[in-house]
């Protein structure tokens, strides 16, 4: 079914409105539904879209010149392929990558999961602290003081180790 508004895109948004006892069915594409304020823009993480938006920001030109000393990839090359050249790129492009990473991962920029065993338990312990502090902030925000108190105790135990 085609969108009733633009008559170009496939309708993915279906709405039944009841106005003055009259039912009206509306079938719109994502774009038109957003334009009419009926849907919130929520697309899956689209890296190329994010990259395109990203270049439009002022002051980015300088970042575009960044290149990796190890694999020689430039940030411009990354932008066109969406794939990095080597592990060192994460450091070489850090400033330019951070906003992208933040957007792709719900605002997060710090790993809190599994760590290689060779790095020892110390690393896991740091991760636990980061996670607990974040959970604590969340608990306080929703005024769940019971959980907050439990988390605070856990943090104290870890820190006193």
């Amino acid at each position, binding site marked *: 079914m085609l969108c009733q508004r633009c008559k170009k895109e496939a309708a993915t948004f279906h709405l039944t409105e009841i106005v003055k006892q009259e039912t009206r069915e509306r079938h719109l594409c994502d774009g038109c539904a957003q334009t009419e304020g009926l849907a919130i823009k929520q697309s899956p993480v689209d890296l190329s879209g994010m990259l395109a938006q990203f270049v439009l920001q002022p002051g980015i030109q300088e970042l575009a010149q960044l290149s990796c000393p190890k*694999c020689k990839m430039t940030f411009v090359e990354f932008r066109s392929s969406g*794939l990095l050249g080597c592990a060192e790129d994460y450091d070489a492009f850090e400033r330019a990558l951070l906003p*992208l990473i933040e957007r792709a*991962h719900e605002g997060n920029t710090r790993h809190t*999961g599994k760590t290689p065993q060779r790095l020892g338990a110390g690393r896991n312990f740091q991760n636990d602290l980061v996670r607990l502090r974040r959970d604590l902030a969340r608990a306080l925000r929703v005024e769940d003081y019971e959980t907050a108190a439990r988390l605070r105790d856990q943090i104290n135990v870890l820190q006193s180790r």
Partner: protein
Amino acid sequence: MSLNDLTGLTGEWLRGEGPRNDVVISTRVRLARNVRGYPFVPRLSAAQRAELSDLLRGGIHAISPGQDPFAYVDLSEATDLDRQVLVERHLISRQLAETDGSRGVAFSRSETVSLMINEEDHLRMQSIRSGFRLDEVWDEIDRIDDLLEQRFEYAFHPRFGYLTACPTNVGTGIRVSVMLHLPALKLTSEIERVLRAAKDMRLAVRGLFGEGTEATGDFFQISNQCTLGRSEREILDEFKTEIIPRIVDYESEARCALVRDRGVALDDKIWRSYGALCNARAISSEETLTHLSLLRLGSHLGRFDKLDLRATNEIFLMTQPAHLQKAMNARLSGEQRSVARAEFIRKRLGLN
């Protein structure tokens, strides 16, 4: 093991077993890892790529479990058809099938574990099982990851975690994917609402064959997108306690409503699908899937008893284009495949 041995049976994930198998087809967890000291796959020279393939293959061979050893397929030497068979069995991705250069896949005979070499990352490891079994698949792949980590030094960053070629996978490198069968939500037109809610939770909704496939028909794959800043356990728990149970409940309610309000229309649809499969003389894989979906629904609702789930799943797999050609031992055009498919189905249903 040769690929010809494979095509005779379905992998574990298509057995139709496991918890909530009325709605959950399969549960999969994959991890992305790269070996330190090598560029990421897009930047590997041909020589480095071959070297890394050998290195990873050797390491995987060394950790191969005695009771269910890994088979290895060198994909740069495999035929197009064989690669396609592996895609249809969910053992490799389309991307790995279609790119060039040194690459391969190791998988367990039960087909629950598959380890892809030189896909977008050096290593893409997955564990997949039928039904809703997150803990089992996670434990399995986590254990393999631990074993391999003792043999290779992974690229790991103190802040960003496991480094991946694409920054959207960085951190845990985990992708949890649950394949759902939602025919009742589709029939009652409530599917849009559910999928929209999933997207609002920043989940990706894909079709039967994952990345790059449309969510058409009654089968939907739900996966996480955020891989950084949440632990593997947190991501898994959200799927286990919130996301999947909620969608499964919606589907179950929709099935109850269908039976209650439109029982006759439902039976009519189910039995017409059976009629089509029994009588078709040429049929596409899409149409086959549409009918099988209804038979599957019918079996679970106790309204259809001519075919058990195992047989339904077997027909589904064996009528995919590459499996069909492998079974016929011939390259077939689309039209020839439709005829062969209809014949295969009639034979499997005990008709001629």
